[in-house]
């Protein structure tokens, strides 16, 4: 479903992504971890082209996302994204945050879009907050709204960029639980996170990134019990 072929990216002289090749299957949950500055966020931001790559290819559902013929808006509708800082729209209600893209990008009628939104809010457990403004919610609730907003476009893949890093400790679990539910429902997910408990529980594969490369990738079993790379061992020692 997602094919990544030897991608490279530079910020000026800085070589952020140094040749990543991977294959991610439909329904797979992939967790990416690694020290900060290793390129994990940049990597997943390339998958919906919030960042451009300078070399290599990313193919999502058979479409080369960097090709000029690809309709990038349509592609992004199929690849939902959840950010570390939630990035909800502060000037409109929770409900409108969720219905905006379906109504404007997909031209879904308002009634139907709202019905979908209420269903999603129910799913993430905060349907009673629909008419509040984002700043009236707690961080955990805001992030759940952001997940609902991402799901409203019925994406085939969801990208999570450190979704719990900006949350107070007591709110992390409510977000992780929503994500676990999603994983069980079979949505393809790529998650950048430091939550190793989450990785162990729901990941099909874990990638360890450093220096702009995927140094090691495998099942949680393999990753936690039998890491091959020195860097991975060191990282796991630090974090566990």
């Amino acid at each position, binding site marked *: 479903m997602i094919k990544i072929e030897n991608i490279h990216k530079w910020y000026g002289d800085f070589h952020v992504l140094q040749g990543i090749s991977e294959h991610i299957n439909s329904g797979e949950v992939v967790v990416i971890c690694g020290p900060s500055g290793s390129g994990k966020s940049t990597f997943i931001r390339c998958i919906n082209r919030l960042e451009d790559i300078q070399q290599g290819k990313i193919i999502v559902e058979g479409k080369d996302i960097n090709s000029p013929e690809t309709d990038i808006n349509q592609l992004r509708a199929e690849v939902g994204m959840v*950010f570390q*800082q939630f990035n909800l729209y*502060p000037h409109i209600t929770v409900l409108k945050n969720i219905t*905006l893209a379906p109504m*404007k990008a997909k031209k879904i009628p308002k009634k139907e879009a709202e019905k979908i939104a209420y269903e999603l809010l129910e799913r993430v457990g905060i349907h009673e907050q629909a008419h509040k403004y984002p700043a009236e919610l707690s961080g955990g609730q805001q992030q759940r709204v952001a997940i609902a907003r991402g799901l409203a476009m019925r994406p085939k893949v969801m990208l999570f960029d450190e979704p719990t890093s900006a949350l107070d400790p007591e709110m992390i679990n409510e977000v992780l639980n929503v994500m676990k539910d999603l994983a069980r429902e079979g949505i393809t997910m790529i998650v950048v996170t430091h939550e190793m408990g989450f990785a162990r529980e729901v990941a099909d594969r874990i990638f360890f990134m450093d220096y702009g490369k995927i140094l090691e990738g495998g099942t949680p079993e393999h990753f936690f019990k039998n890491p091959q790379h020195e860097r991975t061992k060191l990282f796991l020692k630090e974090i566990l």
Partner: protein
Amino acid sequence: MHWEVVQKNMVYFLLGSYPHGPLGGLGLSVLLALGGIFLAFWIGILFGLMRLSKRWYVRFPSIIYIEIIRGTPLLLLIFWFYFLVPVIFKKPMPEIRTTLIAFSVFTGAYVAEIVRAGIQSIPKGQMEAARGTGLNYRQAMAYVIMPQALRNMIPSFVNQFVSLTKDTSLAYIIGVQELTRTATQVNNRTMNAPAEIFFTIAVIYFIICFGLTQTSRYLEKRLSYKTSGRMRQRDIVELKDNSEAS
């Protein structure tokens, strides 16, 4: 002191020779300012957005326009339109229209900068989130960025309006019957009360401009939505009440 001069001519200061003749005085000043700011608003949005374009051939004309206007006095701009338009189009343009165009073109450049700053003040994540859900650039701008940017722009925008209201007095120079000109006319005719007349005029300008800044302050408060870092006035009052009660 000859305050009766002011008293006798008050209606003339406020409305010119209206309703028997064309509108003048304060009425015309306000109309010029309103018309100018209205046109400048749209000019400003257009050039502000162009200024932010990634394409140099869109951005460049906007930069040139903004910098030229910001680097030249408004009075000169009025002269340009006044003296150049008849040369180019072989027929003169009415003075009021000349000044209105000069005001719009002049203020438009400043509004363009306000628009640019307003848009740039919105965190990058807003655009990313909007584009990330599949909205195109135009939709993201229209539904996510602009509504927030416009709110942030209100104080600067009202400032610009206040400036323009005062600058309408420059239309005096090409004979437009606005407030300042009506004052000089009355002064030339009566000769005995310049201090009273120009003091009155100053007070009138002040009342209008002060009223505007106050309105802007009120609007700012009313339109501010709850954001994580910023509290609404009401919440602050509630907080105070609570802490006093406890």
